[in-house]
């Protein structure tokens, strides 16, 4: 066990830092998905051109083929430099791309992966439905096979960035009458195809960042099925493991900044003299340190065994709840100034309101607890 980095890794860190220092945009990323899309694409392109996109993706598809430790170093420096959130590129970079790398055909990979890395193709995730959120196996949207196409009908909901996306990771019921996990397929859906209607939904913080998606006789070539017809559940589970797994690396560093800023603010305002505030700041600073330790432990596990340990769900659950505690503290330190928040503003209050998503999106805290109890502790399955 050691926490040191090799000379090569340290040099890499310096390169990351230098480039970010010179290139992080001075202007703020717009909050609303439709306003941010140009910004997100341009920034992703700049990252790609300078060799910072897909650091541990295979070189054949435009990645750098470097180690996961270097990916972590990049993300640490990225957050330290206050570089903008990758926004609309999130799905493609964090779980669409990795799912394709693991499950897709050569042709699918060759076409889509470079486009994702360059910020040319925005992806969204069509998993949840009005009647199937936590219960993903309950999905009803269906794709009937007609020749070499799927004829798709149904609807999805809470699809982040659907209104600006080009492609979608879409899970469908492709076997008529099939039940639960069986008969599902994971397909690449062209969001510009005829028959698709997108209706944006406003969040309680004011932004429209997710949407409802309706499919009315949408035709998708069978060649767009990833991982084989009927294997959708397995492919979807790999998507979820990336969604629940990779995001936390960046969260870890963001949270370490948040806590330092909170402590500085509490000092400046003299609020640190309040024992309860001092105690919860000390608590959260310890927890943030532990999140880094857990992240490093998990990355080490990947390096050692080729896959993350079952504790990925632990990290996911813990960081999502810790993130919310940090945001609550920020609001507490603001005091009655929170009243001045105007719908849509980006500040502590906006972050706090948007932060409720952390224990809902990508599997709720309750679902994560089920997974931990069942997979880590071996308790009987409730579902």
């Amino acid at each position: 066990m050691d926490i040191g980095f090799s000379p090569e890794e340290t040099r890499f860190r310096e390169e990351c830092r230098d480039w970010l220092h010179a290139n992080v945009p001075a202007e703020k990323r717009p909050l609303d998905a439709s306003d941010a899309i140009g910004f997100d694409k341009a920034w992703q392109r700049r990252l790609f051109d300078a060799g910072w996109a897909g650091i541990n993706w295979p070189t054949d598809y435009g990645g750098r083929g470097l180690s996961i430790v270097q990916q972590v170093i990049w993300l640490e420096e990225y957050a330290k430099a206050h570089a903008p959130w990758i926004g609309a590129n999130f799905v493609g970079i964090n779980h669409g791309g990795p799912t394709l790398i693991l499950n897709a055909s050569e042709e699918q990979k060759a076409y889509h992966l470079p486009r994702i890395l360059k910020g040319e193709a925005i992806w969204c995730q069509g998993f949840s439905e009005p009647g199937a959120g936590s219960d993903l196996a309950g999905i009803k949207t269906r794709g009937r096979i007609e020749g070499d196409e799927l004829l798709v009908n149904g609807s999805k909901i809470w699809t982040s960035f659907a209104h600006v996306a080009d492609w979608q990771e879409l899970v469908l019921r492709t076997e008529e009458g099939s039940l639960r996990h069986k008969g599902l397929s994971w397909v690449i859906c062209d969001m510009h195809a005829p028959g698709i209607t997108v209706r944006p939904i406003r969040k309680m913080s004011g932004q429209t960042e997710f949407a409802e998606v309706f499919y009315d006789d949408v035709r998708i070539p069978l060649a767009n099925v990833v991982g084989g017809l009927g294997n959708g559940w397995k492919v979807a589970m790999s998507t979820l493991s990336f969604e629940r797994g990779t995001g936390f690396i960046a969260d870890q560093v963001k949270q370490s900044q948040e806590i330092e800023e909170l402590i500085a603010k509490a000092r400046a305002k003299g609020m640190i003299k309040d024992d309860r505030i001092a105690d919860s700041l000390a608590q959260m600073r310890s927890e943030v340190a532990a999140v880094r330790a857990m992240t490093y432990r998990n990355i080490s596990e990947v390096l050692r065994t080729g896959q993350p340990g079952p504790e990925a769900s632990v990290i996911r659950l813990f960081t999502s709840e810790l993130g919310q505690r940090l945001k609550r503290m920020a609001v507490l330190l603001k005091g009655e100034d929170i009243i001045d928040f105007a719908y849509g503003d980006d500040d502590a209050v906006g972050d706090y309101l948007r932060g409720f998503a952390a224990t809902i999106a990508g599997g709720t805290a309750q679902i994560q607890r089920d997974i931990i109890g069942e997979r880590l502790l071996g308790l009987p399955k409730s579902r």
Partner: protein
Amino acid sequence: MDLTPNDEQIALQTATADWCRDHMPLAGARSRSAGLWQQLHAMGWTGMTAPEMGLDHATEALLFAELGRFLAPVALLSTAVAARWTGAAGKTALALPAQEDVRILDGVEASRALGAFGDVLAGFPLDGQLSSMFSLDQSTTLARIARPAAIEPVDDPHALLHLQLLTAAYAVGCADAARDMAADYAKLREQFDRPIGWFQALKHLCSDMAVRAAVARSQLYYAACTLDADDRDAAFHIAAAKRLADQAALDNGRANIQVHGGIGMTDEAHPHLCLKRAHLLQFIVPADMAALLAA
């Protein structure tokens, strides 16, 4: 960077756990045999931190977490720290200074005691017979003696951090023990025609125990590495490890009793042993607010 144990460390960890299971089962913690210390000594558990053994703190953290899981005697902590920093051999009891006097924990057959006096670690000889009784933690005897006139401070500030780190490791082990006891029981005990672990109210109690233990263990590993690397943030990381480990041990101790229902609060069952040990550990070099909030 690697925060997982290597093969050699895993082998040591497994050997430690196996030995503990055979010779020092948790179930026996309330009445440890008089010969246990001799056995621990013979097996080398009391001398492994001596400088000539060359063991790093990361490996110690792993092994002490295993020992802690079986509620090993608390004098192993003070003995280990004494072995590394004062060269003392033989049993060193753990001293906890109180308002007016000093509590001596696990002092049977110890010739010295060692503990944190304010922010210095100091030792002193124990002379004469201690009149020991049992403490809240039935694995530990307790005597109260007058404050010694002279104490010998251990100059190196790392020594105090070392004691804090090993105590955190004990607490991590204690949190693990409670979690495993709860999960095992939840798979076995049936109500409403199913194992109680099927019910989410109970499953989620257990999951939260797993989360607390994982958080504390990760920070323990990191903290041990900062001490090995003589990192300038070592004091913070070890304090954070201690705080999280203490909380995990206490909260898991409490949850374990709830998971066991009525039997959980009886003397005959074991959950209370973990809870009581957790209460004791929280007073050994507690995490200091100044270290946690230092700029």
